[in-house]
């Protein structure tokens, strides 16, 4: 059936098409007071590549990455900063990309899961997640790994946490520290124990 043949698009292609139509129908003029979308140009670096986009000011960093740059590794879970699936690293710090406007990232350096490693050359954390089965469905995994990367850097930089016993002493990695610091990344499948094992292996230099 021809109609069905037309529908043989992958889910990703459908979403990409949808996004393209969305951009095409947006008027270029900005008139927010009358409720019309406001369009702005923004440039930032993603995984080492300079990107310039013209975006509706409402576009979150997450939607810019996924819908405009087709970097679909970063996931949209709750879209309200509660689940951590959208975690990316901006100028060395992990943030919820769903709670940040793309236009507020002029000149920033963004690292997503695609920038940490590749299928041919996995980041040590990615390899450890595979080795320890640190997931079931995998939807939260890119956020977990970006978050874990930043957590290890935060501990190295001496940033304390809620479970740090002595605020004035040097911060040491521990599984308690890791669990507390990763509390903004929810795993609906409950793969937490394997996630802790994977990150601990990298933190302790056994990976």
């Amino acid at each position, binding site marked *: 059936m021809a109609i069905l043949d037309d529908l043989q698009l992958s889910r990703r292609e459908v979403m990409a098409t949808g996004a393209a139509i969305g951009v095409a129908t947006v008027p270029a003029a*900005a008139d*927010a*007071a009358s*409720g*019309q*979308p*406001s369009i*702005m140009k923004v440039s930032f670096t993603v995984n080492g590549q300079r990107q310039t986009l013209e975006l*509706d*000011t*409402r576009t*979150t960093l997450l939607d810019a990455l996924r819908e405009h740059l087709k970097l679909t590794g970063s996931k949209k879970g709750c*879209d*309200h*900063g509660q689940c*951590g699936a959208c*975690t990316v690293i901006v100028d060395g*710090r*992990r*943030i*919820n990309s769903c*709670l*940040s*406007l793309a*236009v*507020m990232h002029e000149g920033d350096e963004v690292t997503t899961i695609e920038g940490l490693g590749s299928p041919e050359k996995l980041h040590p954390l990615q390899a450890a997640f595979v080795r320890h089965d640190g997931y079931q469905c995998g939807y939260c995994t890119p956020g977990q790994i970006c*978050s874990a990367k*930043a*957590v290890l850097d*935060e501990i190295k*930089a*001496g*940033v*304390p*946490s*809620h479970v*740090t016993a002595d*605020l*004035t002493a040097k911060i040491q990695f521990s599984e308690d520290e890791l*669990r*507390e*610091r*990763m*509390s*903004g*990344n929810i795993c609906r499948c409950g793969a937490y124990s394997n996630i802790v094992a994977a990150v601990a292996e990298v933190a302790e230099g056994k990976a």
Partner: protein
Amino acid sequence: MRAFSYERAKSPREAAAAVAADPTARFIAGGTNLLDLMKLEIETPARLVDVNGLKLDEIAPTKDGGLRIGALVRNTDMAADKRVRKDYGVLSRALLAGASGQLRNKATTAGNLLQRTRCPYFYDTNMPCNKRTPGAGCSAIGGFTRTLAVLGASEACIATHPSDMAVALRLLDAKVETVTPDGTERSIPIADFHRLPGDTPQVETALARGELITAVTLPKPIGGTHAYRKVRDRASYAFALVSVASVIHKDGSGRIALGGVAHKPWRVEAAESALPRGARAISEGLLAGARTTSQNAFKLTLAERAIGAALAQARA
């Protein structure tokens, strides 16, 4: 989300003037609370004035031995600052008890103070709420009240203030520095910064329209044992049912402030003279006038016991 125009402010005064002149404009800094509320169309600004470029992100000593913490200092950086950790441990602890690592990396000093309540009825746009629509009524009264206020509430609103940081600032007698649209600067004691709901729960702070927070100042260190004990439904990344900020001195005197119980951080200085006589003694004054429901009466017992735990921790 409704459409909005976006601009980057060039000076604090200019930012204040821009927002003062346009009732549809809002400041944006970290954006973690504002954007959440904009997605739900609880907040519907037509214009956002980004204040992130205003260089209000330094922590510096004051001439009277305290610290001046810029409005744009990220919560992570305030909590990690060596001077804050050493001399104002309760503040560092309160910050680290709040939100998640990702959120603390974006959230700012001023934004933390100005965050809105997490009352479930404020968030549910299908239910009347006097904060969202003044005069519409309060759905929380007579509703699900377990997490809501037991002190200082009114017939119009029983929401709590969600901040942990603000509870520590209240304990430390911090001041909120602002600039008004005409360039005047003022310094607001934290005790007067957040308001009780009264008949106007939509008015949450002492700020005038367009008035911009530039910093929070801490008086010189007061010594003592600092602690922030937060009781919540999860071990991490949850709002407080009750929290206790405490500074206890060797002779048993000290200060106590509570979070999770009122529309603002709750501290009763007059009750603190009872602190050396224990948790029950101070709780009598601190929790006087409480009005509870069958769902949230536990907060009074919990507050007293959490204060007891803080005292035991200080003695240990």
